[in-house]
């Protein structure tokens, strides 16, 4: 009876659907070493909702939109008087996936192209164009080092 009462009393718990996130690794364009700048990222048109705020990191994850284009504002080593702001544009092909009736749907993506402004971003390399729920490196962004007199 006690066991039955426990079973009856239990509510079903459901997990949120998985998320496919694009992993970006930053590489110093001069030394070709992994670079660890202070990173801030938000979506174009979503300035009030920062995705990453001043995180010192060598790589970060980005959520792509369910549309075919995602535009991000990327701020590397934010400087007081001269913020180094770039815009990173990802052209992607989203694919809707049904995980299960317990967790729901989510999107996988295929990266079709990358475009960016060139303040700090110098070059790119797509290491894996498939963005899946198993997060892994998708692109490498080569960044120029800060000038010696930067504060």
């Amino acid at each position: 009876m006690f066991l039955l009462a426990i079973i009856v009393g239990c509510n079903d718990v459901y997990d949120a659907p998985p998320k496919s996130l694009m992993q970006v690794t930053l590489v110093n364009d001069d030394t070709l070493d992994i670079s660890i700048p202070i990173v801030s990222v938000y979506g174009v048109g979503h300035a009030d909702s920062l995705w990453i705020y001043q995180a010192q990191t060598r790589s970060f994850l980005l959520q792509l939109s369910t549309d075919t284009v995602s535009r991000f504002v990327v701020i590397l080593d934010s400087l007081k008087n001269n913020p180094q702001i770039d815009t990173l544009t990802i052209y992607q092909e989203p694919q809707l996936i049904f995980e299960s009736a317990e967790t729901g749907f989510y999107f996988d993506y295929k990266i079709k192209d990358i475009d960016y402004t060139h303040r700090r971003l110098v070059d790119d390399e797509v290491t894996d164009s498939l963005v899946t729920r198993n997060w892994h490196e998708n692109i490498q962004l080569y960044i120029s080092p800060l000038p010696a007199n930067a504060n």
Partner: protein
Amino acid sequence: MKIFSFTLVLCLLTLISQAQERNIKKKPKRPDNYIHMYGLRVGMDVSRSFQHLWNKGNRYGTEFSFDMELFPNFYPVVETGWEKLKIRQDYLDYSSAGSYTRIGFDYNMLVAENKKDRDIIYIGLRYGFNLANQEVKSFHVPNYWGDFNSSFPRQNYSAQWVEAVLGIKGEIFKNFFLGWSVRGRQKVGQKNFDLPHVYFDPGYGRAEKNFVFDFSYSIYYNFAIRFRKHKMPLQ
């Protein structure tokens, strides 16, 4: 060398099969080689209404079974029912419903103590199939850029499976039986879709699994009607 090995294997197989034949011949004939239960036994699986207690979502249904002892200890069985699964959570509103039928037989392994003893322990086999539909009334994918909301209309599908059964049926009052069974189901066919794939098969269980276990708990009533022309004493 290959011919020698092949001949050796053949000889061994022949010896083994002869030994098995002798063992089979040694088995004594069952003393209860007679019809125990006359007429038709109709059952209702009472566990189908409470499946939400051990399954995720609101799963419920009704199932009836019909069996008769066609030959001594051999019971052809038809089980038919209806099931529904509803899962309504933050990200999805899913429902699936359909009817199913299983056809097969049970073989009684329990030797009756006397002519009034109608309790059985049985093993059985079934072939099952269903006709069902599923619908995603709404779903919601959370996203930084703006949530994605949509739905999928009703989709019709079917599945087939085979099932092994082990169970008991005991007569608690005259012509009233109670029984339970455990079942292993192996899927043999499924009509599926790219999106969303079938999640639930009525009468089977989780569609994405090729093998599932289940159990049942049923009550039965035996309509002791004589179908046979030859005269045998009614129990």
